[in-house]
């Protein structure tokens, strides 16, 4: 009987740690991949001086392997001595010749619409009760590159 109570204490905690280890590793690997994809394609756009639709679609396609993503694309142009840039967003950026339009920076921000299960794990204790902490964990990527 004593062993039963001991195992009842140990098994849930062991399971919780195991789940955590697996999910945490899964999140970190995928998160890094998402960040790498975003940075890589933003760099391509900056080097070309334009974010072509084909490049954008390829990036969106690669990201779609990790779920449904919202992608926000902006370009910034600094004029004069001020620190506040002119900003264009979305369709005003995609397919436009940003370099000849005088834009300095291209930004791509992407965020998954789905929460990662790791957040759910944080919100419960090994015994299934609410832990009191709420974690909204989801994949995201942000890259800004100077247009040369």
């Amino acid at each position, binding site marked *: 009987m*004593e062993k039963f109570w001991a*195992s009842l204490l*140990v098994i849930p905690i*062991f399971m919780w*740690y195991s789940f955590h280890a697996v999910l945490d590793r899964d999140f970190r690997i995928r998160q890094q991949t998402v*960040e790498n994809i975003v940075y890589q394609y933003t760099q391509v756009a900056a080097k070309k001086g334009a974010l072509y639709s084909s490049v954008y679609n390829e990036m969106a396609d690669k990201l779609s392997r990790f779920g449904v993503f919202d992608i926000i694309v902006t370009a910034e142009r600094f004029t004069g001595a001020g620190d506040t840039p002119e900003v264009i967003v979305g369709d005003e950026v995609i397919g436009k010749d940003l370099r000849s339009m005088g834009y*300095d920076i291209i930004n791509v921000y992407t965020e998954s619409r789905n929460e990662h299960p790791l957040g759910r794990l944080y919100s419960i204790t090994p015994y299934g009760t609410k832990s009191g902490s709420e974690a909204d964990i989801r994949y995201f990527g942000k*890259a*800004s590159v*100077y247009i040369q």
Partner: protein
Amino acid sequence: MKSFFWSLIFIFCTWSLFFIGKGIDNLDIMAERYKRALDAGANAASGYRAYNTGKFIYNQGTGYGVGTQDGNNMPVDRDEAVKWFYRLFFRNLNMNDADKQKELKRYMPMKAIILYDRLMIADIDDNWYSYDPAGEREYVINYGGKSYKFTLSDQIYDIGNKTWIRAGDIGLDTRGRKALLTRYIMGQLDDFLNNRRNKESCNNYKIVFSLDDIDEKLSGINGINFLAFCEGIPISSLNPFRKERFFAYGIGGSEIIRP
């Protein structure tokens, strides 16, 4: 009772291991994030639009000294370069809040510009004068018992005779000259970095440039460069037994190319 006791021991051990590893888990993600931000920032600092205009170069003058060395010099607006560096660096980290930016700047002990014939280094406060009261330091190196001002090309200035000569004139081939100058610059950067203020991490760093790469272009320092070093905001380990902090340090750099 014995089983119950051992189960408690097991929980305590796994709980401890779980938290000890927690900070380290985030280290690789942060290091990669800093690295990307540093590269993007350095790329902007070295390529911002002003360098591409003849007007900028004209207004800055043609360079230093006299003779053919002028042709290799490249004027750099160091404050503008640092400004562009920060713009891109913080954008990549999605850090828009001024207070957070200020906090991270405390862990960015070195921004350096390796010029054609001199070195400029800025500290945490972006002050260029803590490295040298003149705000820059020429590459004055002793070789063969004499002092010379070196440059990134094979032109060197014989301080004693006040003349510009070629490195070959004092028996230095390209490889030897590059190694000598690169070691000098590495030493200057290391000294500055390891004698920095706000040395919270107590870490010493050694910056290394390859000197013997198969590709000649990747050996030594070949051009004018912008470099930035970041220690990153410390990451706590959550170790319940010892207060530990980790630093996801990184360095980024980019060559400034004349149009």
